């Protein structure tokens, strides 16, 4: 069995997934941006502090005109570490919490040479990272110039000083993570709210669909009543479904009704036929009769049986025609005139017996898109009808014409015609508005229904024009065969 799934759940899950992915992206971008911004600010801060440290480098006022670090004047965070050296590598001073080996800050610089160059600005400052006492520090190295005794001749003595200044990155990272976690938590809240909102909205929004499903579930074999909810009809997406379902149901209902009527009619016809045979036999049985009477009775019974046989055969033909067992349309190809000649040949004895002449006009070699057997059956039925209703000594004319993309067969008789009030119903099965036509002449009331079935199958048309006591004209139009159509187009 196929596993069912919920459209609602799928939609919600899809939307939430998309949202989650975008939330992750936003968080990642936020992380990168925040890190960049915070470190930038941190770098400026470092430079400022390093500069102020540089400012604290004073003239040592000693004999060699050295410089010294006057730590008392600078206010720097106690957690920061620094080291100030002069050009000769002499240590001028370092932070009080600096316990690491001498020049550790300095050495780090060389180890991270690659990074160093990258981070170097236009001035002589360098940023790099270092680990001191297990803590990660970001450090800056700036080189400064102190001029001792600038008032002396020769501009004084130039003393180059290098300041290494580091501050723990912990705080920066904390700040970065704080802002990023804000983004992440907001995204999660939005995700949860969206999920709930979508579930509620979809539930509400799909109500017409559920109502439609409920309406459709009410339709059954016994009750064809389908009442689609108004909400479904008003919905742009569901309206086509509603219309399609209504069309389908009404079509099915009609077909079903037709089938049921046909089954009822068929049952009536067969039961009546059986009743005739049975009553004929029982009538014979009622008392002792002479051999002649038995003989006549048996003759009648045989006739009754033959009629029943005819009805059954016709019903089967009709069923076969309506089922569409005429083969593949691609194989349909019939020489119209040849088929008509064959049928007329079959009927010639009957026609001669009734003194009715059958005339055939028409062009040779017109082919129609129809199974030849069906075309013959169609012509046979129509000609039989014409023969049955033609008085002695009259004629029947059959004409075959080539139209633009169809072939037209006209069968006209000078018979008793069909009453106007009956005309609309002649193609119905067992149409018996006038039983004197079918019953007395031995028809089954199925012949024209078969004709209609054949014509419908090959997408043709059939029309009957009739005037009482003057005659009937049956016009059948069947699509031309492809080759004939092409030929016609070329001409």
């Amino acid at each position, binding site marked *: 069995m196929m596993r069912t799934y919920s459209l609602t759940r799928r939609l919600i899950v899809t939307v939430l997934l998309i949202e989650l992915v975008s939330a992750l992206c936003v968080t990642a971008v936020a992380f990168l941006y925040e890190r960049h911004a915070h470190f930038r600010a941190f770098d400026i801060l470092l430079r400022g502090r390093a500069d102020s440290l540089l400012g604290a480098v004073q003239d040592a006022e000693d004999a060699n005109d050295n410089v010294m670090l006057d730590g008392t004047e600078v206010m720097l965070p106690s957690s920061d570490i620094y080291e100030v050296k002069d050009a000769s590598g002499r240590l001028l001073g370092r932070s009080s919490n600096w316990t690491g080996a001498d020049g550790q800050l300095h050495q780090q610089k060389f180890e991270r040479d690659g990074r160093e160059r990258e981070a170097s600005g236009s001035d002589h400052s360098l940023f790099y990272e270092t680990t001191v006492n297990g803590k990660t520090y970001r450090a800056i190295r700036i080189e400064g110039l102190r001029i001792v005794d600038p008032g002396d001749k020769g501009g004084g003595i130039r003393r180059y000083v290098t300041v290494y200044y580091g501050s723990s990155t912990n705080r920066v990272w904390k700040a970065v993570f704080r802002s990023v976690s804000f983004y992440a938590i907001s995204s999660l809240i939005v995700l949860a709210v969206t999920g709930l909102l979508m579930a509620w909205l979809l539930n509400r929004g799909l109500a017409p669909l559920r109502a439609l499903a409920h309406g459709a579930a009410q339709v059954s074999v016994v009750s064809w009543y389908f009442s689609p909810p108004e909400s479904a009809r008003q919905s742009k997406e569901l309206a086509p479904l509603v219309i399609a379902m209504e069309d389908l149901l009404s079509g099915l209902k009609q077909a079903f009704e037709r089938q049921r009527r046909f089954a009822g009619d068929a049952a009536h016809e067969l039961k009546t036929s059986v*009743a005739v045979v049975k*009553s004929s036999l029982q009538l014979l049985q009622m008392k002792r009769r002479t051999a002649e009477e038995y003989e006549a009775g048996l003759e009648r019974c045989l006739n009754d049986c033959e009629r029943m046989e005819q009805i059954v055969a016709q019903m089967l033909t009709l069923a076969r025609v309506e089922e569409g067992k005429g083969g593949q349309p691609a194989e349909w190809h019939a020489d119209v005139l040849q088929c008509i000649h064959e049928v007329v040949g079959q009927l010639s004895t009957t026609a001669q017996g009734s003194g009715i002449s059958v005339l055939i006009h028409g062009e040779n070699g017109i082919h129609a898109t129809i199974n030849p057997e069906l075309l013959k059956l169609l012509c046979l039925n129509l000609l039989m009808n014409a023969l049955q209703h033609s008085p002695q000594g009259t004629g029947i004319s059959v004409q075959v014409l080539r139209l633009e993309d169809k072939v037209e067969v006209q069968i006209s008789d000078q018979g008793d015609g069909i009453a106007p009030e009956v005309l609309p119903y002649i193609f119905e099965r067992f149409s018996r508005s006038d*039983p004197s036509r079918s*019953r007395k002449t031995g028809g089954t009331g199925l012949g024209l229904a078969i004709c209609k079935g054949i014509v419908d199958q090959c997408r043709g048309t059939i029309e009957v024009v009739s005037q009482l006591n003057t005659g009937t004209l049956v016009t059948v139009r069947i699509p031309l065969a492809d080759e004939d159509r092409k030929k016609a187009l070329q001409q």
Partner: protein
Amino acid sequence: MRILVVEDEVRLAANIASALREGPGFAVDCAEDGETGLMLARNQCYDLIILDLMLPKIDGLGVLKAIRAHKDQTPLLILTARGEVFSKITLLNAGADDYLSKPFDLGELLARTKALIRRGKGVAHPTLSAGDLEVNTLEQTVHKGGEAITLSPMEYRILEYLMHRPRVIVSKEELLEHLYDYNWEHHSNVIEVHVSNLRRKIGGSDDGSAIETLRGRGYRLLNGRQGR
């Protein structure tokens, strides 16, 4: 007794008619469509109407309703081949007295026909009696005081009809209407001949069971005691 058969299947109607004529010896008229059937039924000369349901022009149910709307009490037997269209309940409620589904048994049809005619005349048993006169409608035999009397078919029919309507004046026209179908020529003196033969055969008896002639009005079956 005269019966109307409304059935569009000509062969079936012919068989029913032959059976009714040959068996109980009823007079039978046939109609091929509802319209003709209704027109014939309007004469009210039938003792039973056998009606098919699927009829051209007016269908069986329509004919049935029209007959009943006309206050016609004639017993009605419906022949149906498709019980699903008109349910049996609908038919019986519309005023049908009985129904038979096709294909039916001819013997059953005859039995039901006779039973319906009997009921229509207010008699439950197939044996009719008036005084010492006894008529068995099944065997079509007549006994008078235990002795069998041989009657011609027509004489029997007249006696049976009179037995169904004891002490009621039955006109010659009524006898003609109920005992002959349309295929017979109507001559009231035919009835006179048959009645006089009948009267001679059954005679008058001690308790006064005899056929009385009322000049210009008709005949009356007299019986001393209440027969039935």
